[in-house]
Structures are given as structure tokens and as C-alpha cells.
């Protein structure tokens, strides 16, 4: 029996102490009719050598691709130190630091994390993290609505990732909160003030402002922030943490700065990992700290006056306030935050800035290389960070499939979520892409586009001849 240490004689001894004949007797309070069900779909157990083979075979089947996808999750170099330290048993197998004196390692690390995030976003306070970027945005919307009593609407630009908007909708709709979609400029790929200012501000709690936005485009964050504050709205910034090494942080947007900043923490040392675990971060102005969901670590002293760390403001949380809590959340993403904290410490301000600069430079190179190809056009004329949108004369889904056969995952097909833009895809090149990989992408795309142009697939011929 895997991981169960008991010997036969120990079992006997233990049963005698309890005063029963068999382990089965321990289940005598469970109605007979409910007991001893057969597991039919669980396979027979295997040992570690066998599971190693199963997993390795499946991993090999999946293979490795050269990745040009971003869209919320980004491939970055992760220093060896990050996961070597993160998977130390003392971090990996510890739990929520409820016993502060036995958890100073995790608690101090979280305090350092909070400090780093506050500095990165230019805001005063940070919590100890949330599940992921999308759910962090949902929590920010809820916090803003709590802070602005009697307001139940939030202005949500369409330049926020579609899946983020879906997640926010799933999480907030049962509380009677209305999300108002804002359209975007098809020229700039941004959310112009003229569009925002057409909307009512009655009953509106907040304006959400992405930087960069889903298209990689930089928004006019200063103007948007000032407009929102002039109309009594809170500003929720949705930012990429790597971009923060370079771009004006939300705390400095406009006259007074954004009130809350959230985002996906994955770029800070977490692998793409097929979708998670990642972490969401949330920073805010000090005055909003009591509206924040999730764990917060505070610095204090022990009985001898020595500095130490503990969970604080727990009266906001579900285990104390129950149905009146700020959220039902009762975890942070501790382990991934451990990785992120170590990552930020290793990179430092200079390292993080270089990563951001190189991401930008690589994406610029990628966009201009690909846009040279006949049938490929770069959309949007505004500055961007490390992603961009390309319009194709061919079906992006088919093009992406053809690229995949060449070992390239080439981008995200935007046709479904942004049909008004036509046949478009979102591409990204982080610091991990080399010039030769970008050149190879160009070569393959060129070849695929021209072959399809000269010799269109059957379906297209028929459609074309009709």
C-alpha cells in the first residue's frame, strides 16, 4: 500500500487500543447501504518506475514547440535557482501560515513579495496573491463595487482579454453587477477617451484600464485615469508585471494614480505549464486595504521585541466573517508566489528592465518581419509592448495548423472574439526567442502563405468558383 507505513503487528496493536476487531468496525456509524462501493474506473496501482514511463511517454508525445503565443501567459527565462528553491520541502509541503511562529519563512517571503509588487505597481499595498489574473480582475471589480456603495456597474474595455471578461462575468453576475462593454478604435487598437466618455457614469463604480491591452497596444492611461477620477469612478489597472519594469506603473497614472492594480503573475518565474498554476496579484491604495480579498501579511514584533510576520486583517476573511467576508477565497498561490519573489530578487530592477526591453525589441522585429510577407499586414498604429495583431488574407486557423507542423505555435486566432477585425491573429516574441527562430517563423509563414495563394485548398476553390 503506497505511502502507508503500518505493519501488520502495529495495526493489530492499534485496533486493540481502540477496542475493535477490524478496521472495518471503525466505519460502523456509516449506514450499511452506503458502504463498500466498488471503484470501477480507477486502474490498478503502479509503481514509480512505471508512472515515470507513462508520464515520459505522454510528454514525448506532446513534444516541444517554438512558441510565439502570449495572450496572457508568456514564456520567459526562469533562472535555475527559482524552482530549485521553490520545491524545497519546507516551502513545497508547508501550509497556510496560521501558526505564525512556525511559518516565518513563508510569512517573511510573502511580506517581501507584497513589497516588491507594491513597488512594481507604484501602489501602497499588495495582498499575498489570488488565483490568477482573470479571477484577480473579478475580485477587483467586487472590491470596487463594495467601496463605491450604491454603484453596481463597471466599465470594461473590449481590449481586456476576452477570457478575462468571461471569467469576471461568471464570478460577479450573481451579485447583480453589470459590466458595460466599451468598444475600441480599429485604427489604434486602444480605448479612446471619446468612446469612454460617451458612457453614463451613473451607478458606475469603476473603469478598468489595461496596460498593455490584449492586443499588446498601450492605452492612454493618464487621460483615462483622470477622466474616471473626475467623474467619481475608481480606476482598476490590469497590467503585465514584466512591462512594469519599463512602463509607467498604475500608481502614477494621471493626477492621482489608479486605485487598484491587478494582473497575471505568471511571467514572474512561473512556467507556462499548460495553463497553471499561476497567480493573480492585487495592489491598491492604502485606503482600500479593508476592501481587499485574500491574505495579507503584516510586520509586527514578538514578545521580546524582535521583528516578525503574521497574517493580518483577518477580520475581512471567510473563516472569521463567514457570509459577510470580502470573498470566499482562503488560499493564496503560495508556491508560485515563492517562485515569483525569488525571480524578482534575482533579476532586480536592471534585469527585469532588460527582459522587458528585449521582449519589446523581439516583438518589434517579429512584427516587421512577418508584415513584409504578402498577405500579412500589421494592425494598429499605436505603440505596443510585446505583442501585436496581424491581419491575414488567409484563414488564421489553417495557417496556425500549418505552422504547427513545422514545430511553431504561431499565435492566437482572434477571428472568433474580434470578427470586426477580419482574419487576424495575435503574436508575441519574448526575450526567449532568438533572431534565427524569428527568421524561421518568417520563412515558414512566407512559404505557407504563398503556397496557399497559388494553390488554395479545395474548399476555398469551390467557394471561390461559386
Amino acid at each position, binding site marked *: 500500500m503506497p505511502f502507508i507505513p503500518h505493519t501488520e503487528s502495529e495495526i493489530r496493536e492499534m485496533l486493540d487500543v481502540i477496542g475493535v476487531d477490524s478496521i472495518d468496525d471503525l466505519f460502523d456509524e456509516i449506514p450499511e447501504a452506503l458502504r463498500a462501493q466498488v471503484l470501477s474506473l*480507477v486502474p490498478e496501482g503502479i509503481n514509480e518506475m512505471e508512472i515515470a514511463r507513462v508520464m515520459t511517454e505522454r510528454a514525448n508525445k506532446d513534444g516541444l514547440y517554438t512558441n510565439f*503565443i502570449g495572450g496572457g501567459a508568456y514564456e520567459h527565462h526562469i533562472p535555475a535557482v527559482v524552482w530549485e528553491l521553490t520545491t524545497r520541502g519546507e516551502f513545497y509541503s508547508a501550509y497556510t501560515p496560521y501558526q505564525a511562529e512556525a511559518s516565518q519563512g513563508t510569512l517573511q517571503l510573502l511580506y517581501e513579495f507584497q513589497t516588491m509588487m507594491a513597488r512594481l505597481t507604484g501602489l501602497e499595498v499588495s495582498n499575498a496573491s489570488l488565483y490568477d489574473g482573470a479571477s484577480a480582475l473579478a475580485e477587483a471589480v467586487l472590491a470596487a463595487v463594495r467601496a463605491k456603495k450604491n454603484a453596481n456597474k463597471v466599465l470594461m474595455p473590449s481590449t481586456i482579454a476576452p477570457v478575462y471578461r468571461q*471569467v469576471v462575468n461568471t464570478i460577479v453576475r450573481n451579485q447583480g453587477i453589470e459590466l458595460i462593454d466599451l468598444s475600441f478604435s480599429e485604427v489604434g487598437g486602444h480605448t479612446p477617451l471619446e468612446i469612454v466618455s460617451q458612457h453614463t457614469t451613473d451607478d458606475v463604480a469603476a473603469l478598468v484600464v489595461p496596460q498593455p491591452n490584449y492586443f499588446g497596444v498601450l492605452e492612454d492611461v493618464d487621460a483615462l485615469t483622470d477622466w474616471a477620477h473626475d467623474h467619481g469612478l475608481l480606476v482598476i489597472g490590469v497590467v503585465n508585471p514584466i512591462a512594469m519594469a519599463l512602463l509607467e506603473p498604475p500608481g502614477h497614472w494621471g493626477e492621482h494614480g489608479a486605485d487598484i492594480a491587478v494582473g497575471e503573475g505568471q511571467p514572474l518565474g512561473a512556467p507556462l505549464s499548460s495553463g497553471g498554476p499561476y497567480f493573480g496579484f492585487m495592489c491598491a491604495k492604502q485606503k482600500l486595504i479593508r476592501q481587499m480579498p485574500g491574505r495579507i501579511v503584516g510586520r509586527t514584533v514578538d514578545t521580546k521585541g524582535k521583528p516578525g510576520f503574521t497574517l493580518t486583517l483577518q477580520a475581512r476573511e471567510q*473563516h472569521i466573517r463567514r457570509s459577510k467576508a470580502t470573498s470566499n477565497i482562503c488560499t493564496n498561490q503560495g508556491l508560485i508566489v515563492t517562485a515569483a519573489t525569488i525571480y524578482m530578487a534575482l533579476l532586480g530592477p536592471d534585469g527585469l528592465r532588460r527582459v522587458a526591453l528585449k521582449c519589446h525589441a523581439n516583438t518589434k522585429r517579429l512584427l516587421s518581419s512577418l508584415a513584409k510577407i504578402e498577405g500579412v499586414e500589421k494592425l494598429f498604429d499605436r505603440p505596443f509592448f510585446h505583442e501585436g495583431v496581424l491581419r491575414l488574407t488567409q484563414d488564421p486557423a489553417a495557417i496556425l495548423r500549418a505552422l504547427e507542423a513545422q514545430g511553431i505555435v504561431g499565435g492566437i486566432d482572434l477571428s472568433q472574439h474580434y470578427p470586426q477585425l477580419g482574419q487576424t491573429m495575435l503574436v508575441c516574441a519574448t526575450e526567449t526567442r532568438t533572431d534565427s527562430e524569428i527568421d524561421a517563423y518568417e520563412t515558414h509563414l512566407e512559404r505557407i502563405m504563398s503556397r496557399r495563394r497559388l494553390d488554395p485548398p479545395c474548399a476555398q476553390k469551390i467557394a471561390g468558383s461559386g
Partner: protein
Amino acid sequence: MLIFELSKPTRKNISQSPREEPEITDIPEAHLREHPPALPEVSELQVVRHYTRLSQSNFSIDTHFYPLGSCTMKYNPRACNKYAMLPEFLMRHPQSAVATGQGFLQCLYELQEILKDVTGMKGVSLTPLAGAQGEFAGVAMIRAYHDSRDDHVRDEILVPDAAHGTNPATATMCGYKVREIPTDAKGDVDVEALRVAVGPQTAGLMLTNPSTLGIFEGHIQKIADIVHQAGGLLYYDGANLNAIVGKVKPGDMGFDVIHMNLHKTFSTPHGGGGPGAGPVGVNDRLLPFLPIPIVTEEGGDYRWLAEQELPQSIGRLSASMGNAGVLLRAYIYARLLGKEGMNRVAEFATLNANYLMAQLRTRGFDMAYPTRRAAHEFIVTFKNLKEQTGVIAMDVAKRLLDKGYHAPTVYFPLLVPECFLIEPTETESKQELDGFTDALVEILEEAQRDPELVKSGPHTTTVTRLDEVKAARELDVAWDNE
């Protein structure tokens, strides 16, 4: 010492960042940051030493017995970590095509099947990112179900007073009112009170079984009937699934929807507070509402089911598909255990709990529910100790740290005064349990002989007892060098 205090301006780790520093010509000044963020400037060795030392001031399963009730702190097999972190899984972008992830998807599909079997449910979605998000998904499905039948008068969720705080908090997040149901003297749900509480306003009942009191809810079939007859649905909080896995299936108890905590029952690491994973399972009537995406299989090909196929779904809960890496660890664990191993989990978790309870009772400790069998956990109350010596449960907890044991859950459930909720799990040996008993007996003796010694603990940890009032009153949540 904070990492910031080791920092010296201009120190760099040049091997960790791109060599070149390309110039920016196409981003207007107004968008750029004026001052670099004040992150630490420390060497790689300083980082390694700092965080290694920090780790060493943690208690963890790998270093200490950690009998935290309701948290199921069992051994986290290293193989689960190693094989979930194969490069192909780690490097795969979540938005890349399913064709590039068939091996990965196969693991998830098989995990869905295993979880269906273990819970006796008809469908499973792996997407919730934690237990609380699983709860949210579960209650949101209950709401979607009633809404789909145009049954809009149901605005109340029933929750036993012993429930985890997440239950009422979740009900609120789903727009429901919460009504508490009292617990009877034996620790079961007060069935008569439930009978009175249900009605056309009842959307559902959230129940943990075995309950947070560590006992199997004896009236479960009656409770299921009462709630169902009122038109409500029954929600299973899977926090204590470890007590019954392989023994009883929640589906057979009449539950309509369940969330599981893979970081408990399926041994994925707690990681200092996360990430977890909180898959949900449902019976037939809730199938259309499962959160998306879900893995499906046709002729050996795996793909996601999403909006198109499940238009009534409550929707998406995360930017991708759930905590993939956590799910892979749970899958590996389930394969290592297999059918036989899975059956043994509840047996040995229950054996350990009842043995520890019997030992402690013999050695003079008071059980909150002495006539009941322990499920995988049980409650000790220090009410008498407090009256005799002034030593409270928290003092005993802190003193345990000095003896090399992580404290059990304290002051939960709220119904029992001065309580410890103790959950040893199946992976602990008899020797470890005996050592823990001896340590508690020592503390009991200390409390009689020298209560101050216990009240002033812990004495051997890196810090002594912390001033939590100061932490909340004089908030310091980010370091300020100035």
C-alpha cells in the same frame, strides 16, 4: 533580515538577463516609467542563502508531523512533482492547439474518470482553481439549475452552524441569503430544525460529511430526502473526502454536486497556502451547467468541450483550464495508489485518528464527542484545562511547536470551546502518533506544574509569540526603506 536590506545599488546578476539593452525609440516618454522599481539588487548566492534560510524557519510535512484538522496534510510524493514538471508539460502554452497536448489531455481525461468513480458522480470539471472556487462553481450551478427551470423564488442556502466559513461566504458570492442549521447534542445536523427551515425558498444545503466535528453525519439519507422534497439540491463540501475515499461515494449519499480539494485527498502540495485545485462533480441534472472547459475523448483523440457544446455552462473560472500542474500531480498520485491504494486511504486515515483519539483519552484528554467514532479527525477540548490552570488551547498549540510538532487546527469548529481539531492522515506511522501523544501529555503536566511556561510559548522557534494586535493596528504590509 529582509532581502531589501542586502541590496546594494548597481549590483546585477548578469547571467540571468538578456545581454543587450536595446534602445527604445517607439514608445513615447509619457508611457515610460520615471524611476526603476526598487527591487532588491543582490547576488545569486545572496538570494540562494536568504531563501534557503527562510525555508528553514518553516514547519512543513517534510520536516514535521502536521496534524492540521480539515487540511489533510499527508505526504506529498516527490514523484508527483518530478513527473508533472517534465519540460514538455511545462513549456506548453495553454492556448496552443490540442494536437500539441494529447498526452497532457489524456492525463486530465483519465483524472476526470477517476474522480467520477471516487465520488459517484456523472460528470467532473477540473477547472476550479481551489476548493473555495469549486464551492463557488457548485453553488453557481445550483443557481443555474433553478434559473433554468424559471424557479426564481429560491433565494436561500442552508448551512450547518459547524460548516467551514467558505460555505456561507460562497453562498453570498452567488447572491444567496444564508440560513444556519443548528447541530444537535450528538454532533449531527438537527434534523427537526432542518425540517422547519426548508421550504420553497430553499435553493440547497451545503454539507461536509464527515462533518467538521470529525464524525459521520448519521442522518444523511434523511437529510437528503428533506432537502430534495423541498426542491433544493444537496452540496457536498469535499474538505473531508479523505475520510471516506474508497469507502463511501458522495453520489450514493444523495449529493447532487461536490467539490474536491486535490491538495488534501489527492496529496498535491499545499505550497505554503496554495495553489490548490477544486474540481467539481455533478449528477445527471447538473451536467449541462458544469464550468468549462472539460476534456472529452473520441476515438482516442482528446479535446476541450467549451461554450459551443455546453451553452448552459456557468462559464469560465480562470484564464485557461485550471491549475494544470496541480491536476497532473493528483493524476500521478491516483495512478500510484490505484484502486487498492485508494481503498486504503480512508481506512488508515480513520485507523490513525481513532488510535490517536483512544490514546489521548486514556492519557487524560477530553474529547468533544466521546461517544462517537472519529472519522479521519476528532476534537479535543481544553475547556477544563483552562478552568483549572488558565492555559488555553492556543497556549497548548504554541507549546507544541517547541516539542517539534505543528499544532492542530485551533478554535475551529466554533461550536466547541477551546478546541483542537486533530487530523493525523494515513501516511503517519504509529511511532509518530505516539510521540505526539507523549508531547501533549508533557504539556498537560507542564500546565499543571508551571502554567507560565506553557502560556509564554513557543520558546524555541525563530520568533516568540507575535503581537497580532499591533500587526492589525499599525499596519505594515510593505517595507519602507526610508
